[in-house]
């Protein structure tokens, strides 16, 4: 067993029974709560909509983390910048949804270009990549402010302002639309990874680059595609944030922090964990804000960090994280 003893890391599968039970209990709690109180139901749906945004940005972070073991600190700013591109397109008279899809294409190209031009040359060093992403954060922020200014901008409302009523419960079309668009894009991405040759090759390249290259996977190309897809997810989160936060260069900064909390809660390596983590944080913050008197909006970010800290202390691998066993 000499070979086994020399292995650097062993990976066990992520899902555990207690975690599943916990999630099930949480879901039942939300359903019962929503059935017995209309305010609870409204806050839950609004929380899910916000949480889906956190989740999609968290998923973008996880995609890049899995491939390169690096947190892309520029992910939120990239999302913000692509939202400005959509804004510019609508200024030029492009309809909202056409601008939406054009922006996703542009975001993909932008992600690929960033990986090839500034990340690939330094990718052998994790710390260099991290510093580059911090630099990108500042660069993108500066460029957007220079081009469009720091004042609030407004885009056409993608879903209108209608409100649906189900009994005494009111749902905004905006929340439902956000939820559907983000969850739909996450599902599309999952299908890509799970059921296509390209997805399989991308997973292989992220898991074991050397072995993947020796079975013919072009690892560098896959990494670039990964950055492109992460940028697309980021663009979705930015575009879905715009209707509630409006356009400003700082619009994604708090959301990036919520996405960090969501990704850590999910275990950093787990795509499903990132999305569920995002939904949890969204609902959690909304319900706490509604029912706990002292929890004013100023406490939202600190509470998200309390969750993050708690996870790191109690279950550092997150809900869906894989136990990393280092053998020497």
């Amino acid at each position, binding site marked *: 067993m*000499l070979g086994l003893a020399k292995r650097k890391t062993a990976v066990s599968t992520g899902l555990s029974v207690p975690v599943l039970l916990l999630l099930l209990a949480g879901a039942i709690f939300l359903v019962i709560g929503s059935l017995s109180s209309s305010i609870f139901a409204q806050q839950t749906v609004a929380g899910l909509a916000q949480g889906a945004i956190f989740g999609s940005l968290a998923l973008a972070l996880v995609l890049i983390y899995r491939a390169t073991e690096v947190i892309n600190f520029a992910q939120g700013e990239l999302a913000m910048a692509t939202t400005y591109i959509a804004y510019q397109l609508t200024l030029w008279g492009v309809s909202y949804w056409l601008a939406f899809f054009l922006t996703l294409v542009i975001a993909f190209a932008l992600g690929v270009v960033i990986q090839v031009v500034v990340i690939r040359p330094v990718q052998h060093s994790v710390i260099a990549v991290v510093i580059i992403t911090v630099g990108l954060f500042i660069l993108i922020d500066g460029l957007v402010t220079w081009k469009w200014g720091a004042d609030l901008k407004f885009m056409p409302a993608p879903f209108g302002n209608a409100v649906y009523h189900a009994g005494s419960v009111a749902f905004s079309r905006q929340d439902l639309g956000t939820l559907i668009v983000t969850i739909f894009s996450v599902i599309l991405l999952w299908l890509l990874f799970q059921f296509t*040759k390209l997805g*399989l090759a991308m997973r292989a390249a992220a898991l074991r680059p050397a072995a993947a290259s020796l079975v*013919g996977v*072009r690892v560098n190309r896959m990494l670039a595609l990964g950055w492109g897809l992460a940028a697309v997810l980021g663009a979705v989160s930015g575009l879905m944030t715009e209707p509630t936060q409006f356009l400003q260069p700082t619009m994604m900064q708090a959301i990036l922090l919520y996405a960090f909390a969501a990704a850590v809660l999910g275990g950093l390596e787990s795509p499903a964990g990132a999305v569920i983590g995002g939904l949890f944080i969204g609902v959690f913050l909304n319900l706490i804000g509604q029912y706990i008197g002292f929890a004013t909006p100023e406490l939202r970010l600190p509470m998200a960090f309390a969750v993050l800290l708690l996870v790191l202390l109690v279950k550092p691998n997150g809900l869906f994280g894989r136990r990393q066993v280092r053998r020497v």
Partner: protein
Amino acid sequence: MSFLSLQNASLRFGGIVALDDVSLEAEEGSIFGLIGPNGAGKTTAFNVITRLYRLDAGDVVFEGKSLLHAPPSRIVKLGIARTFQNVELFPTMTVLENVLVGAHTVSRFESERSVRAKAQKTLDYVGIGDVARRPAAGLPFGTLKRVELARALVSKPRLLLLDEPAGGLNHGEVDELATFIRTLRDDLKLTVLLVEHHMNLVMRVSDHVHVLNFGRTIASGPPAEIQRDPKVIEAYLGGELEEAS
């Protein structure tokens, strides 16, 4: 012209000489054993052939063409596949998916269904068809070695590099493996390059044995000759060779 050759290959890592002017030639259809004490440069030679390492001097020639300008991802298309000493599978994927990644290069225009069937057939061939749907992580080491072999075989290589295939196997399994390597060669018309610590196995299956020590060639020839070579016996501190065989 030989099928695969290293020509005066040299490679240094800082002050350590991993390969020192090594030349070897493997004939097509042969089983070529590469042995030597720990740190002799065997796995380094594999990594050079598969382009994970870049030579400082010398050349690697496969079917008359130098490999030095091919990126690692082209190697499998040229017909070279390998396994790893410590098993480099994709742990979160299922066994079948691992093999599907291996089929990647040879299946570009094939339907997903026929590729899957081919992957399953390869798993059956190496005797682990029943674990196809299980995640790779958590399976016993011997099974993982076979998954890796299936992943290599599914790309239809003409040259197969096996890095310590007997690692973690018990005595009976090593016997089985010896037969299996020969069957593989005959069935699939392969040339096999074999790095192995298990001396008995190497001496039994190889047509030719090449011995490295501290990155240098100390002997090369048919197994019977190598077993009697005083330099080889000395490199293994006497005893071990006779004991093992």
